[in-house]
């Protein structure tokens, strides 16, 4: 089971520095803005394509959670589970998505943290997320992206970790990606 593969590097602490040109930095920022926009516009097929084959999406249940293997997580998803979630929310009989969840992601404070052991770029940003489904909900937190450079000069997501400020809260359902 891919989800239990403990060799997957979930650390967001850089092991080396990274220097990016102003243009490259702008490319990273645009990539994060585009990711947020695809979620807001529910363009899930395009969003799924932003990931590497073995990319992981993680929303820890605890502050400073070391890994998703010893403790529960609010989300811990590989490609297969991300696809299942998209299939479910797009199913015609998705009773809990009538009406749909609408969202506005505001991404800011983007900083380049450095590189991980495999040379992936670690990027930190702050997220303000307003969701609406019958009533409004605010979510916020720090987001860490680990990005792999692609041959055409773009990026793919290796890890997206969302540290919610209220990860230990009582939650209503979290149906779509944060």
């Amino acid at each position, binding site marked *: 089971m891919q989800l239990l593969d403990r060799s997957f590097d979930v650390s967001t602490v850089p092991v080396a520095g990274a220097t990016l040109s102003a243009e490259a930095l702008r490319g990273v920022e645009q990539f994060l803005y585009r990711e947020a926009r695809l979620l807001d516009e529910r363009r899930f097929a395009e969003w799924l394509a932003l990931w590497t084959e073995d990319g992981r999406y993680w929303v820890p249940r605890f502050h400073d959670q070391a890994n998703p293997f010893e403790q529960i997580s609010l989300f811990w998803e590989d490609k*297969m589970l991300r696809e299942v979630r998209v299939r479910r929310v797009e199913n015609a009989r998705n009773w809990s998505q009538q009406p749909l969840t609408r969202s506005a992601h505001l991404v800011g404070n983007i900083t380049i943290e450095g590189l991980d052991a495999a040379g992936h770029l670690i990027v930190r940003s702050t997220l303000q997320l307003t969701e609406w489904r019958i009533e409004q909900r605010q979510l916020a937190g720090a987001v860490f992206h680990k990005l792999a450079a692609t041959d055409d000069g773009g990026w793919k997501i290796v890890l997206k970790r969302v540290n919610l400020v209220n990860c230990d809260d009582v939650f209503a359902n979290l149906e779509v990606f944060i």
Partner: protein
Amino acid sequence: MTLSNEALAAMVRPDSVHKHVYTDPEIFALEMERIYGQAWIYVGHESQVKKTGDYHTTRIGDQDVIMVRAADGKVHVVYNRCPHKGAKVVPEGDGCTGKFFRCPYHAWTFKLDGSHLSLPLKNGLEGTCYDPANPDFSMKAVARVDSYRGFVFASQSAAGPDLKTFLGGVASSIDNLCERSPVGEVEVAGGTFRVMQKSNWKVFYENLHDTMHARVTHESSFVAAREEAKEIGEMPFELLIMDGNGEPYEFWEKLELRAYHNGHGYMEGIFDPTAATRDPVSRDHFAVLTEAYGEEKARQIMGMNRHNTIIYGSGSPHTVFQQFRVIRPVSVDRTMIEIQTFRLKGAPDAVFDRALTYANLINSPSSNVMPDDVEVYKRCQEGNQTRGGDWVSLHRYLGTDQETPDGMVSTNGTSELPMRNQFAAWKQYMLNPPTQATPNQTASTEAGHAAA
């Protein structure tokens, strides 16, 4: 009080129940007094308070309580209230209070069983009734506390059946959960989820054994899992546990539903028990149990394949995947579910990995399965607010349930027996209010603690 016993009794018919039981705040208040005020309610597991001074806050109905481990090794349950001005003594959550409780307002202190320890400037109370032995100066203990194999229950009523009698046949689910460990012990591990439902607490209990809803309510998730399985060419565990809801009606009809006294019961498993010899996790688990108990007993333990168990008023243990969904009523239309996962001591690590995966995929707020449940519960809550009719149907397979020595069993797995059984217990509680406990009972005697 405007609701007479006659009015309450008339709300439960053999084949239906009046919608006001879900929507009337006055009935909710009565339930807090008559059900949660007397039944044994699960407060937590002993493993959540391992060392002296460890505490875990939770609720018994509408009451905030603290489960705490005292120096004598016993687990006590006390109301989270300081007798001085009424402040909550500890904040919500888990922690360690050390050798005693100390109120953050004026520093009155209490032993870990709640009894009075001290307060500053005692001379100011000279000439009053102040006396450390006077229960008015202690934190109040819940009337009765007992533990069944590490599962701590408390009752706010000094009278009534003991815990074992109360549990009756449903204790076998707790036994089975524990026996899945080769040393017979489990511990809460990996953290708990808390999920809010916008519906009355009874709606969730009824749903737990509602086999007719699975393939209707959960179409979006079992279809998603099946489509994905088709695309990747296999049906791994993560998808299998979503796929089960899509079984045809004939499958559900063959399942067995057990109903015990006091509203408890269980539903037969929906996953194939013979998988024990096929999948590697179950195979390793079986090997460890065989070593501990012998092959015959091991087969019997793993062959006891139950899906949701119901301990009415407390929640729903799941033995096969080591979960306990604790159901906490918040208000007439709000229910909080606290989801615990257990580690089977001495079992292979992969068994705990599987329990965590099940919790993450099925029980977490991000579950692909639960949102559709929570949505239909809310629709029941809202639909029952309309003037579109007064009764909720419990007719399915009425009159066919068979008596057993300790309860009843369905003749068809789609029977609404579990709901009828729950409302029989509901009526029993609601028409028989708890006898008034002796006022100001403290932890000094038998009350308020469980055996170590």
